[in-house]
């Protein structure tokens, strides 16, 4: 996938630090440099203090499961051979919410609000990205 295509398909320029951290096996979220408020999905301005200054801080990687789906065809070509696959929505300790694929278990193991922990695995384009598994 061409770089510009990757950026476009993955949220745009605001998201680049998130994907770059994932390649280093780190879960990082944007945090306001002025008032310290975490925010995700990322964006240019802090809605609490209107500062444009931000940093990308390391998250604990601990989260709570809010919801999940199991995707079946029709799917994009890159995803067909992975089907059915599970996507989870989690709320991190930092208060922000994010998503990822479920690793190490089938969706039948999932229960609402169960603890989850971050891990890293490749998306079909080969890049390591933050993913989620049941907390041990």
């Amino acid at each position, binding site marked *: 996938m061409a770089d510009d295509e990757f950026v476009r398909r993955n949220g745009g320029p605001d998201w680049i630090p998130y994907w770059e951290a994932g390649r280093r096996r780190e879960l990082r979220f944007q945090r306001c440099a002025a008032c310290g408020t975490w925010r995700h999905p990322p964006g240019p301005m802090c809605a609490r203090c209107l500062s444009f200054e931000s940093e990308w801080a390391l998250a604990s990687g601990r989260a709570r499961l809010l919801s999940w789906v199991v995707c079946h065809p029709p799917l994009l070509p890159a995803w067909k051979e992975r089907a059915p696959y599970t996507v989870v929505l989690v709320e991190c300790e930092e208060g922000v919410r994010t998503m990822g694929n479920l690793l190490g278990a089938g969706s039948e193991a999932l229960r609402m609000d169960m603890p989850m922990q971050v891990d890293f695995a490749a998306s079909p384009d080969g*890049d390591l990205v933050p993913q989620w598994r049941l907390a041990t």
Partner: protein
Amino acid sequence: MEPVSLKDKAAVVGIGQLPFSKNIGRSEEVTALEAARLALEDAGLKPSDIDGMSKWSIQVTAENAIARNLGVPNLRWFGEVGYGGGGGCGVVGHAAAAIAAGMARCVLVYRSRNRGSGGRPWAGTSRERDQAQAEGNETAFFAAYGFVRPVDQVAMFARRFLHDHGYSTRHLGWIAVSTRKHAMNNPMAMMREPMTLEDHARSRMISDPLRLFDNCLETDGAAAVIVADAAVARDCRQKPAYIRAAAQGMGPRNFTMNNYFKDPLLESPGAYAAHDLWRMAGVGPKDVQVAQLYDAFTPLVLASLEEYGFCKPGEAGAFVEDGGLEVGGRLPCNTSGGSLSEAYVHGINLIIEAVRQIRGTSCNQVPGAQLSLVTSGNMVPTGALLFRGG
């Protein structure tokens, strides 16, 4: 002093709709023009009466193309609303606001879309993709996880919603079955074969917990409505459907489709539109005889029943059971077959059906319908309209 309001200042006076299909075989420009011509004929108006146009921003055919082909001498007002299926009621509402403000007297609203033959925006195979992305690419935030389809984005909401409110996928089935029953009486509907709860439960899994029959149709279609000043409406051919109230809503921290980053997690933009709609209308959900609740996916209807106040949170399941959404039920809903079984054209067919209920010309007419509600997609910034009869 009375607050300025668009209440009853404008009415839908003309409707036009082409037969829906999987492949309509001509361009969205041609079909928009055909629908506009039908709507003008229905109203008994001429192109020279049109002085405004209002459209979905995702519409690929621009106003000037429509205006010059129809021979409209001048558009003194034109505008558009974004967010695909969330935009429909706003498109009509803006027309009514322009009329109330004296910026237009007769506004053509149109939507033509070759989504049956023309590819899927989420797969990057439709021209509409670029338009949608200009409004923000948040629908692609989680593409690296294989999470790009509208059905996935609704299913993520739906699993938590069903869990927290005590609903089951059988309640979703009731919505699909009731809507299909209405489509069976509608010669324009794309899906007219009978459907049972078991058919729904056995249909192919697409994005667990949602199955094929929880999804709307893939449609080539075109439709138009004409919104006119109440003074113009009195001289038109058809009984006017007065716009009693129009509202839009977005709520806090909204992201298109991936709208999981605000609190409460399960509150939709519909809750905000509903609040303003009832306030402007001066009536409430108990006064409404018929509703077209945006049904691109079945769970959206459950959420709207709660948020527009037809039942309390947790009660929508019982509300839809046993034909609660059918004519003769608690709230006849999506009486043309809706997006699930008539056609999916970003809700313009729902708006037209809401008007037919006021005229008394629906295939599933609710006797004596005087207040007719229609809502737009509530996984995105949304809107709602309340029509009233004479």
